[in-house]
């Protein structure tokens, strides 16, 4: 990093970020166009069809009433878990390498949360009544059932969404201010508004520092609680294969795991297509790689644990469950998951692998595919092997479901593309902090532009 940053000046990062906001190539518009098109055709169109026809448009059936929609929900929630969480942890531990990447990581959190919320809408049988799950005074005096794990979800996710959006906004106030005077037209007004009139006085810096740290401290336990709660949607039931104490840590680890992989993917894209080569460097990939390795080991450990307890219990319910998972109808998916999430990441042991970009990209995507499979299997293999053998059924996702999965990805991409044009996707001031204090030199060229 140092070697690269020797010649880097405050003004450079400044200009780079501002460029990333104002200068837009045809490539961007094309990508955005495609994303929006896919979003409309693969997400909204099938969804509207499903609203008209009923959940029957999906492949779910009587014992397996949950399916890919819920799997996607968990997946996106999981993906949201490294952004803010990681950023907070690193902020508190005050690690330098965080600074170039945390902004986009937090954005990832935000948008995957939004997509997750959308998946809930898709999942519901009567989404037009979703407001009933929100506690608001009404003439029926009916309130949501606060004993329900699903309602914990509602509370947790709302909080998490609020928290992380505030967190990302607070972090960018100085940057809004910084780009405020470099932009014109609507952007200028927007940033003036967003920067709340930030000047950069020592008082402001001081307050921001405090607030930011407090937020970080609050958000870490929140993020952990969110995915524990998501896991309780399952673990609080008495369904064999779901009713497991290990589930909360299992889900949290899985979440951070897939989230970190997600960050790697996003980092790669930003670096490549937004020309942030100088700021997002081998170092970041190296550190993320190490993190991934640790997480993958944790994940494998918990999986083995789950198998063992299932086998050790010896009860027919657990045992059939296990047999079905390993050798049943969905077995290929299971082994694919093991390969992608348990075996492949072992490559990260090698320094060379961690510091080479393309392989990291491939691996990170593989991991997330594996993690999606995991979420799918958790639902499909357990619900189709309930207590009464007479009710056993196999569940096969329908085309509508598959296309909605694709569409949800498009939704995420769209949101992210819009984000990089509005938010400084690399934190200007924090990157400046990591640089050497400038030496005396001629007037910066920005005055010439005045």
């Amino acid at each position, binding site marked *: 990093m140092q070697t690269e940053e020797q010649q880097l000046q405050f003004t450079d990062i*400044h200009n780079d970020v501002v460029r990333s906001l104002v200068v837009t190539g045809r490539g961007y518009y094309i990508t955005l166009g495609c994303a929006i098109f896919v979003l409309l055709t693969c997400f909204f169109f099938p969804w509207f069809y499903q609203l008209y026809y009923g959940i029957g448009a999906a492949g779910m059936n009587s014992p397996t009433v949950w399916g890919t929609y819920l799997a996607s929900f968990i997946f996106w929630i999981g993906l949201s878990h490294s952004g803010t969480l990681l950023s907070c942890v690193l902020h508190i531990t005050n690690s330098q390498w965080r600074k170039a990447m945390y902004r986009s990581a937090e954005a990832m959190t935000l948008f995957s949360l939004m997509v997750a919320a959308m998946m809930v809408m898709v999942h519901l049988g009567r989404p037009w009544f979703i407001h009933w799950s929100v506690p608001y005074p009404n003439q029926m005096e009916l*309130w949501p059932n606060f*004993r329900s794990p699903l309602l914990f979800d509602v*509370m947790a996710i709302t909080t998490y969404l609020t928290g992380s959006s505030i967190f990302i906004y607070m972090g960018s106030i100085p940057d809004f201010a910084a780009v405020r005077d470099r932009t014109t037209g609507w952007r200028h007004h927007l940033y003036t508004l967003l920067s709340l009139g930030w000047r950069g*006085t020592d008082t402001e*810096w001081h307050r921001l520092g405090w607030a930011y740290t407090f937020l970080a401290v609050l958000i870490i336990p929140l993020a952990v609680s969110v995915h524990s709660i998501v896991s309780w949607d399952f673990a609080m039931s008495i369904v064999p294969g779901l009713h497991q104490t290990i589930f909360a840590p299992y889900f949290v680890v899985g979440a951070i795991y897939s989230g970190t992989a997600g960050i790697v993917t996003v980092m790669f894209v930003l670096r490549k297509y937004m020309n942030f080569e100088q700021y997002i460097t081998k170092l970041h990939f190296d550190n993320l790689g190490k993190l991934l390795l640790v997480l993958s080991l944790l994940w494998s450990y918990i999986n083995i644990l789950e198998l063992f307890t299932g086998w050790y219990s010896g009860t027919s319910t657990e045992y059939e469950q296990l047999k079905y998972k390993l050798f049943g109808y969905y077995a290929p998916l299971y082994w694919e998951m093991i390969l992608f999430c348990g075996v492949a990441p072992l490559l990260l042991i090698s320094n060379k692998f961690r510091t080479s970009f393309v392989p990291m990209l491939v691996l990170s995507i593989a991991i997330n595919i594996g993690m999606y499979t995991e979420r799918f299997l958790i639902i499909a293999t357990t619900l189709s092997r309930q207590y009464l053998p007479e009710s056993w059924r196999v569940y096969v996702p329908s085309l509508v479901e598959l296309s909605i999965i694709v569409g949800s990805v498009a939704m995420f991409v769209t949101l992210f593309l819009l984000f990089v044009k509005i938010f400084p996707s690399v934190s200007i001031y924090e990157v400046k902090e990591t640089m050497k204090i*400038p030496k005396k030199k001629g007037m910066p060229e920005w005055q010439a532009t005045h």
Partner: protein
Amino acid sequence: MASNALGLFLDPDSALEAARRLKGAGFARPELISPIPIHGVEDVLGPKKSVIRRFTFFGGIFGALSGFTLAAGTAVLYLHPTGGRPIITIPPFLIITYEMTILFGILATVLGFLISARFPAIRERVYVPEAGVDRFAVTVDCDGEERFRRAEAILREAGAETVRSISEGES
């Protein structure tokens, strides 16, 4: 007419130095404007107390109370016995409480930040665009010519690149 002396520095240390001298020369508390947080301001210009922590704390307390009240209160308001559990069921309600604690903690922190940093700024205040990029500014308000000249002198000898006089609202 209240006017300020403004000195632009190329590096934070000389800016800090200037601030110290101004303070020593009996000026009102100088203000530093910088593109990045400068460390060690407290040592120079004396420590700052932040009220934010109190906001966070009491926000959390409020959240906890309101969380449990919401869960328990609504349960009592319209009795729906479920699963043979009591109407007021502690463990799940604690989870609600937990989430609400954090939610209100966060909101209160933001509030605290806005208030203590006087955001959003309604009226224009002394603002130095250069300080948004790579300059470190020191402003100190000085009424009258000769006080301004004294300030300018101090700033210059501290190594200010430029010194100008600005008045509130100008930028």
